[in-house]
């Protein structure tokens, strides 16, 4: 067994880390195990004795996991119940059962058959979907894991076979199959790294650490005789807490969350770990956390119910009319109609008791006019939606070229909801960004280096250039940038009148991943010729030393890959390597760096002794490392958030402060993530004084330990000397800015909910143009109120309330129409803001802001925010995310979209739609959403129209039959009319209707706001014609065929077409007349409407029709820009703001020139 994965050093991180492993490395005697008694703490796990858990009283479930809705036994009752929850189906069920009694106007068959058909079809669909879920489960359950089979032998077993108490060995980059207690790892001190991306979306690795006593169990053979008992809490959904005791060798040790490895997290940077299974199957914390995915119903479907209720009322109304008519007829007419046997009374025909007869007739009438309610509506809609979903799945424009992942409509019943979205709630990591950092610029000693431009800069400059060169009417048509920049984009140098030149250069495919820095002054060792070479050396060394990463030799390239805790760190290391400071080795106490000052020199390996590592956490917002270099000098190298670092500078450390701040602002403006670097030289005695204090703090036990450590760290991290700043571009996913821009133009609001820290979130906000300089940022935060006790909780609430009210006031008082506000709120504040008494104020504030960013939010809060928006605004929300932490939000939103990226599939599994990149959201919403909505809406209208038209003829006919309840049509005609004959044309409308082509949808995002409105009988496709005429032909074929059948079945319709109707010209001429005459009013209506009051899409259709877009490019562009919704967020808004700013500057300059000229 190759320990430590080949050359990887076995490091004892616990010695180095300050904050992460809060447990002291020695088990102290006074450490009390938890006293676990009472309900909620009854679980007992006998380690390495899984057999004990198979029988009572410890009959814990296996690791088998099932996500299906039904099983073979429950399918029928459950699915049938689901079906009859629909009002219309219930009504038809009632009608069908009544059709067995003499009251029914139709034969029982003709009532039951369509219902069975319709319900059967829907159930078949359910069954199919559940089957797919089942297959998915089977796949997960049959994954294999290395498990202890006894006698120190390990072997592979299916996940579903795992039992509580099993010892499993999980290897690098594998998922944990169940919730485990960490026993030991490939690292000597039992540390392992865990990626919890799937749980909370955080990408930085978490450190888990085993108990000291189990460290010895780091070998397969060691488990031969291992037994221990764990007493712990019962299964619960709380991801961040765990209470339990570990009884081993007559000793009891307390357990806490740092020893627990949760299912669905992944082992990283660690070769293997051993663990004992505590929770299996549905007892897993993740599974406990998973909320039952609610069955979502689309808005139209809900409205359809409303319409059905209206129709019901109408139905009851006309039934009442006809039964009153019937009662009257029965009372006054019936006795005289001797041919109807008035003497033979029955309850239905009783002249002496017309009220009773009338009542029974009411039942008859309710069934008779049931044709007002379209029985096949639901089924047709389902068919249409499945077909629409196929179109979405087939769309090559949403198919990722690299991975070949197509878009997938996973639940087809929400297609049209895509066309109604009002608010998008987006996850950040993995959704907006690729979580891949790119070192772009830096400022060293007050000089800014790096000529590469961020996406924002490129666009702004390019636009200003085009405006300056005369084509000034071209108002902010961002579209064109992207069109141009998509093609060849050379480099153009634009001279502003103040002499500053700005290189616009599309970075070519960066040669090195995570490094697109370009500046000849620094690369290739040229930095030594710069004036401040000494500061630069420090800058590069800080990059190369101040981190907690591990280098891994890459055999292919001969270089190193770095296993960093965060992608930023990785980017810094790669940048340092490119500058000639290659981090190559880490030992317990030292970091080795190969320094190469020029490309011609051989690298020089230098050793830096790492004395202390004060690592990063969200509260400190900085990281420091204290090293001793080869000359024996002790240096404190610090990097961190600029606001923090700038506070801690010494008086003589502020030489470059002004320039650096200026650069930092510029970088921030350009959407980059910034960090300031500083250093401090420590004297030997100063250091040793501090170190004793530090060691003392480190070994303190109790709640004060952390505060104490922080205080001690603060003592050393002061009087710093500023070196410079870095700017890293968090690479947005391809097309994210454009997509957000388009979505903003389409009038959608975008909220970002991220588990990341506030700075990162804000930076991303800048990068994807949700935030921009000049936007008023409203930060809601209670960070500074410190630790909260019961009492301060109330204060905190009041504090937030005042913050919210102030902000609302500020927005109200704002006069400038261009002013935009951004709301930024952190998770802790959100907890209070989401409480019942505050949430409405919070929501109204958030709605007023152009963009909203929530950071540090838990998965649960994401779902709560989503619910708040959904319920508070009453509008359709769409949640998009890629990790398991987004599942709650995806399920809560009206429409959930999962990104089928590289990470786990939970988000996708829980989603309604999955796309492989954020940018496809644009097409999904603007094109498919628009179409689907329009199609479905038109189809539903059409459906109700045809059924009302049909139902009313039955009613009119009643007047001629003495309201007796006789239908004018044959039973089978009616059945087919509803279920088959009229379904096809409607379905074809629902599938093929296309008001404007996809390009036009994309060019006019504002069309999204329009939605459907008119029943425009434009036969778009030859297919449509086929369906319509096909259905007419079917009708005639049916008449012929039906006429051929036995007269007993066909009754009056026997041979009706061939013998009576076919040869009669009056029939054909009447048919023609009726068809055309019925269409005239509608044609007239739309012509009027079009002539006097055209709708947007109609105008566009006209423009397209006259080919004006080709002839008059200019007008076309102008229109496109006009068609945008006025936005305050997004790229366009940002460019606009930049232009405003530049114009002002220009005017000022001109006026000052004038003044000079005058003087």
């Amino acid at each position, binding site marked *: 067994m190759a320990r430590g994965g080949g050359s990887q050093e076995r490091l004892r991180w616990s010695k180095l880390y300050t904050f992460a492993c809060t447990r002291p490395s020695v088990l102290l005697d006074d450490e009390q195990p938890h006293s676990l008694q009472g309900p909620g703490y009854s679980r007992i796990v006998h380690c390495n004795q899984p057999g004990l858990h198979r029988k009572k009283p410890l009959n814990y479930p296996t690791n088998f996991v099932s*996500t299906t809705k039904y099983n073979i036994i429950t399918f029928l009752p459950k699915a049938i119940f689901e079906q009859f929850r629909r009002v219309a189906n219930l009504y038809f069920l009632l009608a069908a059962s009544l059709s067995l009694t003499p009251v029914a106007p139709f034969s029982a068959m003709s009532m039951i058959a369509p219902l069975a058909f319709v319900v059967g079809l829907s159930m078949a669909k359910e069954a199919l979907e559940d089957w797919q879920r089942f297959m*998915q*489960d089977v796949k*997960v359950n049959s994954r294999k894991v290395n498990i202890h089979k006894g006698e120190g032998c390990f072997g592979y077993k299916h996940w579903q076979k795992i039992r509580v108490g099993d010892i499993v060995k999980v290897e690098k980059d594998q998922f944990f199959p169940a919730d485990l207690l960490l026993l030991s790892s490939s690292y000597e001190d039992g540390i392992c790294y865990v990626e919890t991306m*799937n749980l909370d979306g955080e990408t930085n690795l978490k450190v888990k650490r085993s108990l000291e006593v189990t460290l010895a169990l780091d070998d397969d053979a060691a488990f031969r005789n291992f037994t221990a008992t764990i007493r712990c809490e019962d299964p619960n959904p709380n991801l961040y807490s765990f209470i339990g005791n570990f009884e081993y060798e007559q000793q009891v040790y307390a357990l806490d969350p740092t020893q627990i490895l949760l299912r669905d997290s*992944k082992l990283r940077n660690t070769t293997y770990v051993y663990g004992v299974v505590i929770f299996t199957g549905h007892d897993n914390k*993740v*599974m406990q*956390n*998973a909320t*039952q995915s609610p069955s979502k119903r689309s808005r139209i479907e809900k*409205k359809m119910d409303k319409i059905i209720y209206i129709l019901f009322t109408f139905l009851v109304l006309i039934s009442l009319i006809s039964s009153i008519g019937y009662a009257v007829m029965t009372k006054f007419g019936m006795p*005289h109609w*001797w*041919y*109807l*046997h008035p003497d033979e009374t029955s309850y239905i025909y009783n002249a002496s008791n017309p009220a009773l007869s009338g009542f029974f007739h009411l039942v008859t009438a309710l069934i008779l006019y049931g044709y007002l309610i379209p029985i096949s509506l639901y089924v047709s809609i389902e068919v249409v939606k499945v077909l629409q979903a196929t179109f979405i799945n*087939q769309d090559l424009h949403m198919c990722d070229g690299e*991975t*070949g*992942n*197509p878009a*997938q409509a996973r639940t087809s019943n929400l297609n049209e909801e895509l066309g109604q979205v009002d608010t998008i709630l987006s996850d950040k990591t993995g959704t907006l960004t690729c979580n891949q950092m790119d070192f772009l610029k830096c400022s060293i000693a007050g000089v800014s280096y790096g000529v590469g431009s961020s996406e924002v800069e490129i666009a702004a400059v390019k636009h200003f250039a085009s405006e300056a060169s005369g084509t000034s009417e071209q108002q902010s048509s961002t579209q064109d940038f992207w069109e141009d920049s998509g093609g060849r984009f050379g480099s153009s140098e634009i001279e502003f009148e103040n002499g500053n030149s700005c290189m616009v250069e599309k970075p070519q495919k960066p040669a090195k991943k995570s490094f697109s820095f370009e500046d000849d002054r620094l690369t290739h060792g040229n930095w030594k010729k710069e004036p401040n070479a000494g500061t630069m050396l420090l800058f590069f060394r800080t990059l190369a030393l101040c981190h907690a990463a591990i280098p891994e030799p890459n055999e292919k390239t001969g270089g190193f890959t770095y296993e960093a805790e965060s992608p930023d760190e990785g980017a810094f290391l790669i940048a340092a390597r490119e500058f000639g400071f290659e981090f190559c080795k880490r030992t317990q106490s030292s970091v080795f760096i190969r320094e190469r000052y020029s490309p011609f020199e051989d690298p020089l390996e230098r050793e830096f002794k790492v004395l202390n590592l004060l690592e990063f956490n969200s509260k400190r917002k900085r990281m420091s490392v204290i090293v001793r270099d080869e000359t024996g000098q002790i240096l404190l190298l610090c990097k961190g958030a600029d606001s923090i670092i700038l506070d801690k500078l010494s008086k003589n450390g502020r030489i470059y402060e002004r320039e650096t701040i200026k650069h930092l602002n510029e970088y921030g403006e350009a959407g980059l993530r910034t960090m300031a670097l500083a250093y401090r030289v420590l004297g030997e005695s100063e250091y040793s004084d501090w170190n004793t204090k530090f060691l003392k703090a480190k070994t303190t036990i109790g709640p004060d330990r952390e505060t104490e450590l922080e205080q001690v760290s603060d003592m050393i991290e002061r009087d710093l000397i500023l070196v410079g700043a870095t700017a890293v571009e968090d690479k947005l996913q391809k097309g994210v800015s454009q997509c957000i821009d388009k979505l903003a133009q389409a009038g959608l609001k975008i909220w970002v909910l991220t588990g990341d820290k506030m700075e990162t979130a804000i930076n991303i906000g800048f990068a994807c143009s949700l935030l921009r300089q000049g936007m008023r940022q409203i930060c809601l935060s209670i960070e500074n109120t410190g630790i909260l006790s019961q009492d301060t909780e109330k204060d905190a609430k009041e504090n937030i309330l005042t913050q919210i009210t102030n902000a609302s006031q500020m927005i109200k008082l704002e006069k400038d129409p261009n002013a935009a506000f951004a709301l930024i709120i952190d998770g802790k504040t959100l907890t209070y803001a989401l409480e019942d008494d505050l949430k409405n104020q919070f929501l109204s504030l958030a709605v007023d802001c152009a963009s909203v960013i929530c950071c540090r939010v838990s998965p649960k809060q994401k779902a709560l925010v989503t619910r708040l928006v959904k319920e508070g605004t009453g509008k359709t929300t769409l949640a998009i995310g890629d990790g*398991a932490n987004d599942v709650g939000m995806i399920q809560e939103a009206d429409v959930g979209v999962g990104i*089928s990226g590289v990470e*786990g*599939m*939970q988000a996708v*599994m829980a989603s309604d739609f*999955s796309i492989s990149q954020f940018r496809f959201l644009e097409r999904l919403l603007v094109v498919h959403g628009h*179409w689907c909505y329009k199609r479905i*809406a038109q189809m539903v209208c059409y459906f109700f129209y045809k059924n009302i038209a049909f139902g009313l003829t039955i009613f009119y*006919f009643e007047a*001629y039959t003495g309201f*007796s309840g006789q239908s004018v049509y044959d039973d089978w005609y009616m059945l087919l009319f509803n279920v088959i004959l009229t379904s096809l044309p409607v379905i074809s409308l629902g599938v093929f209707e296309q008001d404007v082509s*996809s390009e036009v949808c994309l060019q006019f995002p504002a069309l999204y*706001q329009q939605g459907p*409105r008119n029943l425009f009988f434009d*036969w778009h496709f*030859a297919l449509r014609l086929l369906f319509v005429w096909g259905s007419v032909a079917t009708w005639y074929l049916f008449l012929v065929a039906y006429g051929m059948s036995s007269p007993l079945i066909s009754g*009056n319709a026997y041979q009706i077409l061939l*013998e*009576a109707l076919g040869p*009669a*010209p009056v029939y054909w*001429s009447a048919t023609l007349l009726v068809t*055309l005459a019925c269409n*005239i009013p509608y*044609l007239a209506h739309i012509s009027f409407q*079009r*002539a*006097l*009051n*055209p*709708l947007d899409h109609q105008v*566009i259709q*006209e*423009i397209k029709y006259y080919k004006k877009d080709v002839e008059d490019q200019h007008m076309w562009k102008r*229109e496109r820009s*006009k068609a945008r919704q006025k936005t305050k967020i997004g790229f366009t808004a940002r460019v606009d703001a930049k232009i405003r700013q530049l114009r002002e500057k220009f005017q000022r300059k001109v006026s000052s020139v004038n003044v000079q000229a005058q003087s």
Partner: protein
Amino acid sequence: MEMEAGSTSSSGGGTQTHSYSPLRSKAFYKFTQQNLPACKPNLTPTRVIAIFLLAGVVFIPVGLICLRASESVVEILDRYDIECVPESYRNNKVAYIKDSSISKNCKRLIKIQKHMKAPIYVYYELDNYYQNHRRYIKSRSDKQLLHGLEYKDTSSCRPEEYNNEIRINRRNIAWKSDREHKFGRNVYPFNFQNGSLIGGGNLDPDVPLSEQEDLIVWMRTAALPKFRKLYCVIEEDLQADEIIEVHLVNNYNTYSFGGKKKLVLTTKNWLGAKNDFLGIAYMATGGFCIFLSILFALIHVKNPRPHGDPTYSYGNRKSTTAFVLHQIVW
């Protein structure tokens, strides 16, 4: 519990790559990408005016032709239900019709106003008679009519009328399919009019149902309360001013519910019997179309909207957009 399913599958559930082989036709590609050529009728004013004008121009002549055809049909109506009751019974017609001892024979003289070309159809017309009543229809049994056997004929009743002297055809008045398939050859109306119900004539119990054409005609349910049933076809021309004598038996009791009885003689042309409605409807529709086309022409002249001119969209019509949005939400 969607959470779990793929929990740890990084393989990706739905990653089947779509590879479109060149073999697949271009049309199919266009179909899946929803790129098929679409025809979007563009309702320009000229087109709208032209469409309505065309409809009007076509419909009015068609209407004229229909009306003309209807005009050419000679139809004679003769109401006989009151005239056939002797004066003494006029006040109590029901008693008259129910009294089987009184002869119900009646003679009507009908003067032919215009030349009538053979074939001349003789109908009897009933009014206010609910043959379409649900009870009526439910009491009918197609099975019984076809197979006879144990089924009992119940309430099928009809008035009887005689005619002589002129060459008439009493055969083939019912639908061929009815005679051949719906009414049994071996079924005899042994039970007809034996029950408590009265009214109408009798059937010869020795003639099978399939040859009782009067019954067959009667049994084809009328859709409306006022209906005509074919009685016979006169196969020679009737000259103008000719007087024909019709002997009929006023058997059927319509008096108790106030129904009218009429005798109808009519010729037929290519469009069928007299039917003014179709022609009028065509003409009205056509007229309306022409009116609309004029209206649109006026609108276009007075208030021209350059088509494809975007000034009529977006900003200018904020209010309408709002209205439309409101509409969508139902």
